């Protein structure tokens, strides 16, 4: 088998990214949409860490920052979800349309 190069890792990251994008675009449940966003962020992290092997440790430091920001964003997003769920008892994105004309 061919030795594992950087491109192998980038292809895996691209596959995870595409799966995350499909999840965001197709699912109705808000929690699963947020989890797909986490998938996207993880694909980006894998990309960063794979490239850090070529270009130095900056990729790994940036990956740590991405993980930290993903935590903050997940907390805020889920807070919004809970606040909205209290008003209207639904978790489907296409039913969260109070501002629609």
């Amino acid at each position, binding site marked *: 088998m061919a030795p594992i190069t950087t491109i192998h890792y980038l292809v895996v990251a691209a596959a995870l990214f595409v799966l995350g994008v499909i999840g965001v675009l*197709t699912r109705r449940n808000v929690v699963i949409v947020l989890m797909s966003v986490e998938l996207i962020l993880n694909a980006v992290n*894998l990309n960063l860490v794979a490239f850090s092997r070529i270009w130095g440790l900056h990729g790994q*430091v940036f990956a*740590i*920052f991405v*993980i930290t920001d993903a*935590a903050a964003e997940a907390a805020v997003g889920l807070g919004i979800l*809970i606040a909205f769920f209290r008003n209207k008892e639904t978790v489907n994105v296409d039913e969260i349309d109070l501002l629609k004309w």
Partner: protein
Amino acid sequence: MEPVATTFFFYLLSGLAILSGVLVITRKNPVHSALALILTLLCLAGLYLMLYAPFVAGVQIILYVGGIMVLFLFVIMLVNLERSQKEKQFNQQWVPGILAAVALGALFVTIYIKGDALFVRPEMRFPEAENTQQVGQMLYSNYMFPFEIASLLLLVAIIGAVVMAKKRI
């Protein structure tokens, strides 16, 4: 020296990661999706270890799996609706969505294959014993400002999440 079973573990971990990724976006029950996402995150931590990034792997396990996924499971338990599992799971534009995403993926892979000459080989080999020390030094010298901003960001996120989830402000 290349570790012995790199190829085997790479294919195992990445295959498992992609398989659980598919499970994340297709399961009806959000708890099963969350479990599949946990499996994906753990496989990615293994991949980081293979990329000579043990500190990032440790941070991934502590923060992502031990923190963010616990938060997700809490919220799923709080908003769990039995009837939401019997409704439609996919919205009306699922076909264009999948097509667009696959086109994006094809674009990525085309770029990688065409730009193959730009990747430096062989890759650097970091001495694994000093990864934490070097990341720490970089974090406190080059990236000092983003480090402090990240702590401020976390403070804002905590306050925001608490205020939004309170019953009465």
